């Protein structure tokens, strides 16, 4: 009995510690644009959400998707298209983009989930390449030029997002919602089964769980959130281009997630922030043409020495020294 009460109080402590951490981060997120250029922050947030969505698949479902660019691009193109052509408000545009990505995720998932490991990655890659060439040809994407001059519009038809500050808080709110959804998914009855499947799939089957269905749901959530990131990004930059659909983008999100720490809740955020920061600052200096080389080097070092990523290593260190 005593151990039980001890455990539960230790648990409460860690829960309240986590609450504190989230409160501090929320506060930082709210004041950040006063110190840092908001457009840069919005870029970080969009990629962080994208990486978090990807991490749900790899870190918690154990499935490496090499086609997440397709969802990012779909969200962006659809949102751009409906905002420009139908004149809908930004929140409706984002909603439609997200739903389309989730639907595409359902199709991808249905096809890819029958296979595991490298085959799963290859199928998702092949499908996303298919989508890429579709977007090169399709009339509504603007081909090589992409969609330019997408209006940010007025939120709920009232608040103008043309200025960066209101836009930042809108993006921040979307990020917080997306992040909260992922956090909840991981810590839900569904998340438990997802972790069980990652840990030991045959055992999950033998306990009577239909693992393919769980993976599919996770894939759809992940694709939808990647689409949400893409939709939001297209409004921030008022642009949707083929860069988002290219397989480079699928690789970049893997890099961000691994660098930050796969299977940790903050890892993808840290990874995305690191990669975006490096890209932004290096591309202005004399090292501009070396950005891919530098990122590649960092990736190699990370894989060789910091296997669990930045956040993963910090957690390990904290566990070793403070508990």
């Amino acid at each position, binding site marked *: 009995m005593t151990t039980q009460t001890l*455990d539960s109080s230790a648990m409460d402590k860690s829960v309240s510690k986590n609450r504190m951490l989230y409160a501090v981060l929320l506060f930082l997120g709210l004041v950040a644009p006063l110190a840092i250029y908001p457009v840069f922050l919005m870029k970080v947030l969009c990629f962080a959400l994208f990486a978090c969505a990807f991490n749900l698949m790899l870190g918690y479902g154990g499935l490496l998707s090499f086609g997440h660019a397709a969802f990012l691009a779909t969200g962006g193109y659809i949102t751009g298209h409906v905002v420009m052509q139908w004149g809908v408000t930004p929140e409706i545009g984002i909603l439609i983009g997200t739903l389309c990505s989730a639907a595409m995720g359902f199709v991808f998932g249905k096809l890819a989930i029958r296979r595991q490991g490298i085959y799963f990655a290859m199928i998702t890659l092949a499908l996303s390449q298919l989508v890429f060439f579709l977007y090169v040809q399709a009339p509504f994407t603007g081909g090589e030029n992409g969609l330019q001059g997408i209006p940010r519009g007025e939120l709920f038809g009232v608040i103008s997002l043309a200025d960066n500050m209101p836009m930042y808080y809108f993006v921040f709110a979307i990020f917080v919602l997306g992040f909260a959804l992922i956090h*909840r*998914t991981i*810590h*839900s*009855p*569904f*998340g*438990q*089964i997802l*972790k*069980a499947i990652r*840990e*030991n799939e*045959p*055992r*999950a*089957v*033998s*306990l*009577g*769980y*239909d*693992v393919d*269905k*769980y993976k599919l*749901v996770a894939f759809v*959530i992940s694709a939808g959130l990647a689409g949400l990131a893409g939709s939001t990004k297209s409004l921030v930059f008022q642009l949707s281009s083929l860069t988002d659909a290219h397989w480079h983008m699928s690789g970049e999100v893997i890099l961000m997630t691994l660098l930050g720490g796969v299977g940790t809740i903050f890892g993808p955020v840290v990874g995305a922030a690191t990669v975006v920061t490096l890209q932004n600052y290096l591309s202005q200096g004399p090292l501009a043409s070396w950005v891919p080389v530098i990122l590649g080097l960092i990736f190699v070092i990370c894989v060789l020495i910091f296997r669990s990523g930045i956040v993963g290593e910090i957690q390990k260190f904290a566990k070793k020294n403070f508990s």
Partner: protein
Amino acid sequence: MSQDFVLETQSLTKEFKGFTAVDDVNLQVQRGHIHALIGPNGAGKTTCFNLLTKFLTPTRGTILFNGKDITHSSPTDIAKMGMVRSFQISAVFPHLTVMDNVRIALQRKLGTSFHFWKSDKSLDVLNDRAMELLEEVDLGKWADTITVEMPYGRKRALELATTLALEPELMLLDEPTQGMGHEDVERVMHLIKKVSAGRTILMVEHNLHVVSSLSDRITVLQRGAVLTEGPYEEVSQNPDVREAYMGSEAA
């Protein structure tokens, strides 16, 4: 009389390219028995086991569970029907706590396993039952341990608790004492005996000491086919078995 058999196979056959791993096996497992499947290496025990649990599809033959044809059911379906297997390598979820391992088996009954919007605190209602199961296999103290940190024998005990959580009618154990030290073998044997009350168990086992002291009935496989079947005393006296299974020991 066929009602007395929980599990029955009729001329079960599995062929891999040009090689018959399981050849025309007719197996009948009586309700309430501990039934052992033994045989030398490569006799097709594990293949047979994978056929029964639907992890492999038979080339020919039928499998009946409680008189119902399950030859073409999926592994998930038969688990839901009450036929749960273990694995040769310990089948646990290594990076979850011992408690979570058992809860994962229990939570299917709640029907909320697809609810990604619900807090996992909603699973706390299962804690008491999970603790009971852990106590049953002497793992009460280990509840908050991360599974991977436990010794091997304990992991097998946990696996048993997880399987029990589903309240299976029929448990299939694939070499439950494989790779264990003497002490652990005794513990697991004791556990199997304990949990066999009111259940049927079919196990593949190498350790003859375990087989002789636990099983009510034994089926001996050799080169994929049934060599003989009966209680231990009878089987162990059979000259064919002595030759096939114990080899030079019989001489």
